């Protein structure tokens, strides 16, 4: 394996590893709070990747001076930053909904274990 290539794309590699950790936590962990943490990991990994793609070494934030003297070539790519910001808003909304569902389930069944909740729901249905 080309170590130099891996080092060059270290942020992308880190993002993919984080995405994998988040995905497996979201899918396989039985604890509802840990599932939500897994989801946050997954989304943050994508935002990290996007930000690293938009960054260009030696350039500054895309804010034009009042006299318009900064050339476009002095700025980093502004679109990924905008996308990350939108993505964070979406991610926060999803997390809020997931947390509110978790609170409701906990109030009703007094556990955060998804399998236990499933069993309790089944028992409730049989009554």
């Amino acid at each position, binding site marked *: 394996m080309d170590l130099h290539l891996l080092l060059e794309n270290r942020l992308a590699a880190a993002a993919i590893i984080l995405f994998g950790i988040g*995905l497996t936590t979201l899918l396989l962990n039985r604890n509802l709070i840990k*599932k939500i943490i897994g989801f946050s990991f997954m989304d943050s990994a*994508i935002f990290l*990747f996007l930000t690293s793609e938009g960054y260009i070494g030696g350039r500054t934030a895309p804010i034009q001076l009042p006299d318009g003297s900064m050339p476009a070539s002095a700025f980093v790519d502004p679109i990924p930053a905008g996308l990350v910001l939108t993505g964070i808003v979406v991610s926060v909304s999803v997390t809020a*909904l*997931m947390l509110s569902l978790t609170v409701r389930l906990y109030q009703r069944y007094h556990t955060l274990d998804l399998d236990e909740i499933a069993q309790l729901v089944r028992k409730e249905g049989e009554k």
Partner: protein
Amino acid sequence: MIWWQNLPFFSIIGSLLSASIAFILPRKRARHFTLLILGLDVLSGLLLLHRIILLNAGPFVFQMGHFPMPWGNVIRCGVLEAFLASFFPAVMLCAVAAGQPSLEELSEKNRESLSCAIVLLLITALLAQIYSNDLFTCYVFLEIMTLTACALIVLRDSGRALMAGMRYMVLNLVGSGLFLLGIVLLYSLTGHLLMEPLHSSIQALSQAGTHHRSLTIILALMTVGLCVKSALFPFHSWVPDAYSSALPSSNAILSSLVSKGYILLLLKIYVRVFGWDLVLASRVDHLLLLFSLSGLVVGSLEALRTTHFLRMIAWSSVAQIGYIYLGLALGAGLGYRAALFHLCVHAAAKSLLFLSADMLQRVSENRDRIQCLRGAARRSPVFGLCWTIAAFSMVGLPFTGGLISKLLLGEAALSHSRIVAIISLLALALSSFLHILYFLRTVILLWSPDPETTGPVPSVRVGGTPLLACCTLAVASIALFFLADPLLQLFSLGLSQF
């Protein structure tokens, strides 16, 4: 710009603003307001369709903030978009109108206005999905659709509904994550998010012979992400629980519209972004074929096995989603046309199945076991007839839209290689046979006299609006058979300009 070219933008923004208004209105007014806004959405779609066809104008692009491509965000509307923008709100209008009796259950919890706001947010996301020409905008509205769909599932606030909502969210978030990763990779490769510039960049990369593996991975991520979100087999585990615990109008909207939004987006990505040749080269169509064929057999088998009425309809949904994906897998031309036609057939028939099933359960003391519904259609003949028509359409019997979509799928399969054609036709035949078994078994049971019922037949008072809405959907299921030719012409024209 001509005035009617503003309609797509204003239908999206109008629905979004109306959601906030519906939330603060008293419950009865909120319901009427929602029906009015959905009606206006239908009218705007029909007006657009009329104008585009009448003027032979072709698709047009609406620049947001007057920034041209590729700098600004744009929405795009052609024949197909205009048709779907009138058809989807029409189905939703019927679902909301027919689900009125079950919404009264929510009025005790003061949630009726909230449910209206959710429905309007959902139609906003769906309309944005239809018109949007930008992948990231599609992702944002995809998430709004997921959130509102989850809210629809948990509206009843029972333990089962909450659990189903949680399961729905977990799987959908996996799908969203994969889809978003696909978009980000595509952006890093091409530097574009708008579909036309993306298409040009991807074609250039493909012709240069570079990044073939990256493009394959991106296409696979997007396809699997959207398959997970639209509950294609084997990502369907939330479907039976969610559909058997949510409100009937929620079920109708979820099964007939939400999943269709994701499928439409995938079609857009195949046609407008990648092109069918690249899909073929990446062999993603094989993946879709595998999922869809197994889905339509497993869904039908499970529907036959279950003893619960709503679960049977839910499992049938898994099979029907398989049919639509089979059309996509069979590819450009005949396959896409078949997928689009079945998408409409399924939207009309499946919402009718859920809505009339609720009425049939109401005249059977709200029991869910299929055996307990013996004679339900005799107690409520109009809804029994509506359920029967929808079931016939799902089976694919003559004089219903389902027959045409099955013939189209068969035709599309025959235009493929011999192995694909044989496997697809065998799976179609087996699934149709299983559909006949479980739907006809239930229809016979519903119309059989109930020996336990002695004396006067229990009746449930149903207003005229739910009746009218269900009858409209039943007429639509039959009309799809008789109007198949002009519709198919419209789809062919729409796909050529998509």
